[in-house]
């Protein structure tokens, strides 16, 4: 199953490679991994999307917890949570297709960030389903370039991950 794990780690050089090294050394899947500092400059927050059996996920969480740089973590998949990812996609936009693309972007609540005679750069935010659906709609033949931030996530309600 797909799990979204949020990790607070010491904002120190090398902390990221401890996490990524753990995943490659133990052969765990990484679907995506994002990391950036938080409002507390001593902490980074990382979101890891991984896939595995329940036992595998349990090991991943235990092994992450074992890393000395990991301060706290939570498996968001266990609670109600919001997942967001940002994507920018450069698409071919010519002739009649231009209008259609604009309409689709509106329906998906995306934004057109850049326009040339033959292309658009569209920004879209959402979870992985929405992003996949949008890419589908665009059609592989029209896509010039895709860049995705990787998923970030946060629990709904009062629950929070902080020190």
């Amino acid at each position, binding site marked *: 199953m797909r799990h979204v794990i949020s990790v607070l780690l*010491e904002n120190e050089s*090398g902390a990221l*490679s401890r996490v990524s*090294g753990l995943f490659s050394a133990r052969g765990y899947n990484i679907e995506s991994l994002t990391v950036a500092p938080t409002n507390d400059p001593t902490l980074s927050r990382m979101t890891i999307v991984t896939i595995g059996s329940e036992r595998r996920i349990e*090991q991943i969480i*235990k092994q992450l*917890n*074992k890393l*000395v740089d*990991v301060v706290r973590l939570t498996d968001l998949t266990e609670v109600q949570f919001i997942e967001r990812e940002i994507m920018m996609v450069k698409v071919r936009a010519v002739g009649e297709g231009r209008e259609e693309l604009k309409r689709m972007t509106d329906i998906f609540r995306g934004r057109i960030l850049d326009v040339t005679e033959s292309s658009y750069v569209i920004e879209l935010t959402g979870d992985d389903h929405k992003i996949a659906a949008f890419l589908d709609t665009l059609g592989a033949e029209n896509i010039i370039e895709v860049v995705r931030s990787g998923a970030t996530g946060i629990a709904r309600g009062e629950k929070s991950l902080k020190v």
Partner: protein
Amino acid sequence: MELSGGEVLMEALKEEGVEYIFGYPGGAVLHIYDALYQQNSVKHILVRHEQAATHAADGYARSTGKPGVVLVTSGPGATNAVTGIATAFLDSIPMVVISGQVPSRLIGSDAFQEVDCVGITRPCVKHNFLVDSLENFASTIKKAFHVATSGRPGPVLVDIPKDLTTPDIKVPFEYPDHVEMRSYSPPELGHPGQIRKAVDLILSAKRPMIYSGGGVVLGDASEQLCALTRELGFPITQTLMGLGAFPASDKQNIGMLGMHGTYEANMAMHECDVLVAIGARFDDRITGEIEKFCPYAKIVHVDIDPASISKNVVVDVPIVGHVSQVLDAMVALVRESSRRPEQAELDSWWAQIKKWQDEDSLGYDKTADIIKPQAVVESLWRATKGDAYITSDVGQHQMWAAQFYGFDKPRRWINSGGLGTMGFGLPSAIGVQLAHPEATVACITGEASIQMCIQELSTCLQYNTPIKIINLNNRYMGMVRQWQEFGYEKRYSHSYMDALPDFVKLAESYGHVGMRIDKPGDVDDAIKEALSLTDRTVFMDFITDQSENVYPMIEAGKGHHEMRLNPWKEPA
């Protein structure tokens, strides 16, 4: 007090109560060596190869419970140390390694003798640090010792750029008296509810089995393990790493389990209905084929590392905590309770175990006219009254040492189990001997393994460590040869040790005593003679049976109940 980086390190080591530091100098640590020269609280042991520094520190740690300390230079010094760091990591041995690094401003420039030491060692340390300022040096060392020795122990490396140890750059020195790390708090106390549940299960067992491991040695809980085992009257098996925590000579001990464990221990594993795993990690060498592992058992598992639990085998009652605390609590609950397992059931379980013991799975031909390696180990055991410190290398000799030297005390059996590092035996023995100057220390090795760190014979002379080297010389990488015999139709591909040195002359050239023994009748006397040379390192080259195999054995894909037994049988 204002101190330079080198002096900070020396003061910090002194504060930590460090007795010995095992090392080898080089450019990046010259300032530190200069500070070392000007103090006299920490003794430095100059090895002949950095791998040996780590193994010696490791032997010191295993035999004392205190962390081993290593000092190496940047680049090749650090990479040479990696094997020993990984060895300590896989066996959870507390160790602090200080490595020099090129000056801060040169990091990342492919400077002379620069390697990314923190990067190279990351997967084989419990944690590591690159020191970024002299102000943080003392607190980093404090953290290093704390992390290395607490929770599940392990090696910690501190990489220190050369500019931070410059003699004329000084900072006020204050050694922290405690450590604050919000991201590190190893578990201590086992959950009382889980402990209760475990004891309930244990007291309801009909065919119980205690399976204990290195965690009991690491956690100094031998006394508690004995108390629980004796209170319950259960059979106990120990892993290679756990040997000695429960006395081998005790009737309740039914030997090691696993690939080369005894028939009775493995059969009892297969048939038991309650398995109590204590400080052991269900390594693949002990489980055999995982699908066939303990098919009838409910399993209790006590371990300080949550990640050890249900990693390889899913258990029924996990208890995360320090083994001595958890065992204390268990013993108290058992003593409080009036319940006991059904005595009749326990008796018939023991009767069954006796039958398996009658198989005499460690039996070997004692009448052969060629030296049997097992007989050498038994002779050593008799001559030392089972009370020596034994280090070992890796191979058949290691297994025979484990099978035939009955360890009655913890921290007496020093070997590389997890990584299986050939070359470990001699340098680790140096560390053990330094820690226990009056004790008998023997290194049971093979002619292939001993050559991997043979240069340390020179260190033995320099520091007068009177180790007794027992070389079980079968002219083969015996363990490799055995696998080739069983699995590759005796195609002995590159497992023959050709062009061996004359070990007697070799030992003599290093200033030691060399002995060559090739007759079974000479074994006892030779060992006695060697042991009588209490102030000399003695290299005993035993010419042993080349064709001897380690039995019994669980082969790949087999379960505990499918052991391959020695085809040789004691004539009736």
